[in-house]
């Protein structure tokens, strides 16, 4: 399991323990929202990013309503009290999710080594009321902390948010809803590559802040691994053998897509030092390569989706969308 999106990982944890398939929920996560600040700095998190639509689809797919316990209209201190009270009374089947600054917990892995790292984790009480168990499915981590250490990491001005849900009744997602969700999340364009291009262009004439502007690119780029879940889901639903088919080839392409963002980041750092237009041109060529590669991946995915629809007898409902997308040149083997 690869880290893709922390909130998605949290809510999928209960799905993985059920008979339902969690992979459809990763549809569209490859293009999940991120922020581009007014200074043209990429950020994987911003206060204005809403997870409402994402959680609405979770309810439609799996029948679980995720509610916010965090009240932005109240003070952080009041919200911390609310969290502590809820942790005392919550039932085992209820899951609590909280946003904290992972960088404030140096004992935890912070593989991106960011000074601020907003991150959603799940909390469980223990027999000791001063200790809480932290479940971080995104990093496959589980461990106990002093309650006060966790509260300190929540009590940071850079983080705000939290949810809870009852995961005792997981609904199996129906084909119609899976199809609608796929269509809702499929974008013809590639927001991340476009945003990187905007950042590059904005800083091109004065690139000293360009490295910092792209510092969080790796955190957003790994969301592209969500494509793997979609490919695996459709291949299996279509009865295509993952081992004997070209599934691994597509996984390689997805990995290349992720890794090429690192090359772009490298070139951006280089350009900030050289200010050589040749390096700028090199970046632009890599951006074109990213667009071409992601076009290819999305086309194949749409082909798979179309076949899935035909198999499930829902072609008419999705034909309009399919016709709007570029035709695929790829044959599924």
């Amino acid at each position, binding site marked *: 399991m690869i880290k893709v999106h922390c909130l998605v990982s949290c809510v999928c944890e209960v799905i993985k323990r059920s008979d339902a398939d969690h992979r459809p929920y990763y549809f569209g996560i490859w293009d999940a929202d991120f922020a581009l600040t007014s200074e043209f700095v990429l950020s994987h998190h911003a206060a204005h990013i809403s997870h409402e639509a994402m959680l609405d689809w979770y309810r439609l797919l799996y029948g679980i309503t995720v509610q916010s316990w965090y009240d932005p209209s109240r003070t952080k201190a009041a919200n911390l009290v609310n969290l502590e009270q809820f942790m005392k009374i919550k039932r085992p089947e209820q899951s609590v999710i909280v946003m904290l600054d992972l960088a404030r917990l140096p004992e935890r892995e912070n593989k991106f080594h*960011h000074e601020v790292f907003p991150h959603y984790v799940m909390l469980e009480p223990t027999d000791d009321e001063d200790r809480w168990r932290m479940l971080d499915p995104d990093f496959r981590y589980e461990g106990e902390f002093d309650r006060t250490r966790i509260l300190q990491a929540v009590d940071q001005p850079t983080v705000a948010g939290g949810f809870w849900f009852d995961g005792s009744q997981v609904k199996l997602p129906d084909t119609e809803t899976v199809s609608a969700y796929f269509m809702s999340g499929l974008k013809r364009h590639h927001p991340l590559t476009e945003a990187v291009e905007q950042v590059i262009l904005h800083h091109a004439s004065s690139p000293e802040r360009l490295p910092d502007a792209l*510092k969080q690119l*790796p955190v957003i780029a790994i969301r592209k691994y969500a494509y793997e879940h979609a490919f695996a889901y459709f291949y299996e639903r279509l009865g295509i053998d993952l081992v004997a088919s070209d599934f691994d080839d597509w996984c390689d392409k997805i990995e290349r897509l992720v890794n090429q963002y*690192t090359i772009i*980041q*490298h070139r951006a*750092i*280089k350009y900030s*030092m*050289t200010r050589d237009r040749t390096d700028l041109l090199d970046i632009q060529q890599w951006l074109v390569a990213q667009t071409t590669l992601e076009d290819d991946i999305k086309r194949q995915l749409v082909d798979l989706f179309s076949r899935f629809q035909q198999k499930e007898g829902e072609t008419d409902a999705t034909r309009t969308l399919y016709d709007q997308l570029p035709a695929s040149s790829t044959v599924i083997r």
Partner: protein
Amino acid sequence: MNLLLDYTSFRQIVEEQLEVTLRQAVMGGERLRDDLQLDSMRLLQLLVHLELEHGYVLADEQLAQLPQMTVDQLLQSLARKEVV
């Protein structure tokens, strides 16, 4: 295997360029991210410096693996930049 950089030179360059203090003796088996605490952006900055000032490059295909590399793996993967 002849390395382009020895441990002492590597340590010196890292400390000077990234403004960090490493232990006196860098061990070849130490991992760049988890042991030396060098994040991915710092490592990319280091690579750019090695390329521009020393003419040493890491293949593009290996860039994404850089944080997981050990000191030895990095030093063994560095190659002289081809002058076109």
